[in-house]
């Protein structure tokens, strides 16, 4: 596998969705290619950082309107 092949399979690799044969080929390439190793590690890290990001709290006025709409739908005083 060459560098282009590594990039093409990068997402599948970090998701653990790569066919075992291709995975072996890819890891063999990583053993001697510092650039691809860096790209793989940084992309995996980037995904982890994104996964770890937390949603901001719902603005109170938006939340109030949501629950008012639900109350209207479900019944007064229910939510």
């Amino acid at each position, binding site marked *: 596998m060459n*560098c*282009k092949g590594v*990039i*093409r399979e*990068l*997402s*599948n690799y*970090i*998701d*653990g*969705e790569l066919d075992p044969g291709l995975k072996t080929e890819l890891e063999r390439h990583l053993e001697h290619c510092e*650039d691809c190793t*860096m*790209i793989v590690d*940084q*992309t*995996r*890290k*980037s*995904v*982890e*950082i*994104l*996964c770890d*990001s*937390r*949603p*901001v*709290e*719902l603005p109170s006025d*938006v*939340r109030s*309107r*949501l*629950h008012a*709409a*639900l109350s209207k*739908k*479900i*019944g007064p005083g*229910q*939510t």
Partner: protein
Amino acid sequence: MLDAIFIPEEGYKPEFWGILSTLSTPNPHRLPSSIAREDEHLLVAAAKKGDATAFEELVNRYEDKIFRLTKNITGNHEDAEDAMQDAFLKAYSHLQDFHGDSRFYTWLVRIAANESLMRLRRRRPNQFSLDEPVEGDTDLMPRELEEWGPSPEQGCAQAELQAILADFIEKLDPEFRIVLILRDLEELSTQETAEALGISVPAVKSRLLRARLKLREKLNRHFRRGTLN
């Protein structure tokens, strides 16, 4: 297809289901999701029997995340609020259609994503298409390569990192943004994402790869010198 009001039922299977079902594999790089708590199915069962308090608990549990989803997809506060509200209202109305074959949260995300997409398409008609063929892979090789250090994210405050990610998502093209949000923020599987968007698994994977490479590129500009720009 995506413009139609769409409430995904548990039994819903697209034409390419046979292919999809063979490709569903876990994502070992992720920690187990904290989204689906053990009592979720009990709350859903109670809500289906008419327990409004149980449904309220589900809303309280997921409202922050669903608002983040609708905001990220629509890029517009007003549309995000409307999409979120309609998603919860439709989820309540169609609760009997949910049979528990998947997580309730996944079902809810699919409804919210569809509500958001309808609004995005209405506001930006003809500006993007999720249905286009998978692009070629001729120009994917990253050009900016610099060392980050072992824990680059620790070099900046959480709020700054959140701002960087928010800016990145906002500026990402919708066809990449939506896939990245569903896969990496909402933790839907490739198969679930394909179903939710009505596109093929290869199309999801192609867009996800590009989106992740763009994310690495964005973070590289902030992490390469070990400090924020």
